[in-house]
């Protein structure tokens, strides 16, 4: 069953240089206890779309349309500062950031920062909040939690801080956790540990997880379904194995071709995607990937960006190649 359904979400930024359509008609579904990966390069709108879900877009950004259906309610009907929205944030949907160095308040002890959430949302008293915080700190593997409770963030290493962020995100037993590039700032061994931990935690708490990343390796292992975003839109969506084994959108194919894999024969040349991502200001209505596309046809320059065509069971791609059912692409061609 769908826990969260985002329909046709649009978030635009009015800048001096022009209108930036950071998120332009994006739809997502997250089912109960599902791990969803959202992949795309910098500036493709992945973070903005999830901040929009939380109604935390600051001016000049504005959510122009769409629906965010969570537990049967459209969150976009609430105003940013409404008590209803605040009761969702942190308690029902929580978020983990990319930069553990700056996402903890430097002048409050780490334990206190978790406890205050528990007091705020679950109305716990000081003692209950501290107990639960210590329990969670033990759960994520912070040694000597009792003593570390009173430490300040600067006394923690990057990996430990990110563990504290996970504690914070999990503290109120949320239905959905959004992890915005949770491991980008960490070294590779710590990355693996943290992803494993995150995976275990959402299982333990029966939450759903959205993994936002530009790292295909991160989602490959954990995600059940994947959305690939480009220039503010979803260009391909499908089950993880479909995306990795049978990618259908030229952008996804390009991404996979420039990523080394352990399970392939040696000697494959990595192929970069040539060109640069488009400037989001005043974009033409045609396919945004067109200038970089190896599969482009003349028609692509004339037609507006097509809708998502079905290319398999639960597998969609936004490309004219798939206008007709027979248009499947084999990546190795």
């Amino acid at each position, binding site marked *: 069953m769908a826990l969260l359904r985002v329909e046709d979400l649009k978030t635009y930024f009015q800048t001096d240089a022009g209108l930036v359509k950071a998120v332009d008609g994006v739809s997502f579904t997250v089912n109960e206890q599902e791990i969803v990966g959202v992949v795309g390069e910098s500036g493709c709108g992945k973070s903005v779309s999830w901040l929009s879900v939380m109604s*935390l877009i600051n001016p000049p950004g504005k959510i122009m349309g769409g629906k965010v259906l969570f537990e049967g309610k459209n969150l976009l009907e609430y105003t940013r500062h409404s008590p209803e929205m605040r009761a969702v944030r942190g308690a029902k949907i929580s978020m983990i950031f990319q930069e553990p160095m700056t996402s903890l308040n430097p*002048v*409050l002890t780490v334990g206190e920062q978790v406890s205050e*959430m528990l007091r705020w949302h679950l109305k716990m008293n000081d003692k209950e909040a501290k107990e639960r915080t210590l329990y969670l700190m033990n759960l994520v593997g912070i040694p000597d939690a009792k003593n570390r409770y009173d430490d*300040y963030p600067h006394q923690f290493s990057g990996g430990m801080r990110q563990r504290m962020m996970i504690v914070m995100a999990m503290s109120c037993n949320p239905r959905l956790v959004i992890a915005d590039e949770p491991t980008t700032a960490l070294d590779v061994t710590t990355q693996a540990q943290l992803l494993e931990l995150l995976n275990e935690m959402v299982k333990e708490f029966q939450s759903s997880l959205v993994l936002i990343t530009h790292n295909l390796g991160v989602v490959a292992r954990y995600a059940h379904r994947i959305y690939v975003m480009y220039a503010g839109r979803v260009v391909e969506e499908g089950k993880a194995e479909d995306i990795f084994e049978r990618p259908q959108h030229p952008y996804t194919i390009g991404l996979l071709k420039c990523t080394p894999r352990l399970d392939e024969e040696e000697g494959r040349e990595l192929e970069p995607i040539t060109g640069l991502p488009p400037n989001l200001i005043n974009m033409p209505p045609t396919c945004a990937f067109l200038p970089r596309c190896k599969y482009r046809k003349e028609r692509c320059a004339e037609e507006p960006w097509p809708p998502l065509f079905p290319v398999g069971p639960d597998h969609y791609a936004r490309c004219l190649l798939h206008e007709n059912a027979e248009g499947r692409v084999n990546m190795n061609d």
Partner: protein
Amino acid sequence: MSDGPAVIGKAATVANFQEAPPRISEWKRFRRVFFGRGMVVVGSLILLCVFLTAIFAPWLAPYDPYKPGVGNPLEKPSKRHLLGTDNLGRDQLSRLIFGARTAILVGFVSVIIAAVIGITLGIAAGYSRGPANPLIMRLMDALMCFPNILLALVIAAILGGSIVNVIVALTVALIPTYARVACGLTLSVREYDYVLASRLMGFGNFYIMFRHVLPNVFPPIMVLVTLQLGAAILAEAGLSFLGIGIEPPGAAWGAMVSDGYQYMMSNPVLSLAPGLAIMLTGFAFNMVGDGLRDAVDPRLRGLL
């Protein structure tokens, strides 16, 4: 020196790794940083003296500070009158002691009220992305157009000279500085991820402003507060010197400097003593402010 390595054996190293050193409490750290610098200690001692003097003035003062003619006018310092007497024959030492009360009262009350109002306005303005920011800050700019002392002078002149009016005048004059500094600091702090994080955690705006933003902007403001304490005492002295501060029989250091100033050649102690008191108190506040800034910030506390 040669037997060094033998003493630090392998066992000792291992033991050190396994046993966590005992935790130093934050309060202990605070004291260690705060009292770690000589100047801060000196400043604290001076302030302590000033405070005690202010509190115990009636017991410390050898004479009634308001009663003229306890000695002859303009007596030189002697055993009976340690700092001599002023032109009305009042005991200068007693007046100096009672002047500490005025200074502390005016300084603290006006600075604290101004800080509370100014910081609140500043954080609200800095945190808000709506019309509150220009509204509050333009108002502060308008207030800032007037030199502090002139503004206080105008207010004191309108309201008349009394200790309450001096406090009101100084408070109004000091508010814009706090608002400005707090607003600027908040503008930078609000962009940090932890502020976004606390919004994501569902906290309300007021809670975030005072629980998450305030402690982060506080250390620099702390220094400003202590600087302003010194400045407020000076400003009060200035107002009194100009004759629109404390009503005449009352004892204020500034007024004493101003009164004694005419006798500078014959009896310099009359204005030098209160002048020195003003200077030392101002200096002490600045030193303590520096010490506090380093000690209230948990990040610096760990390093120093």
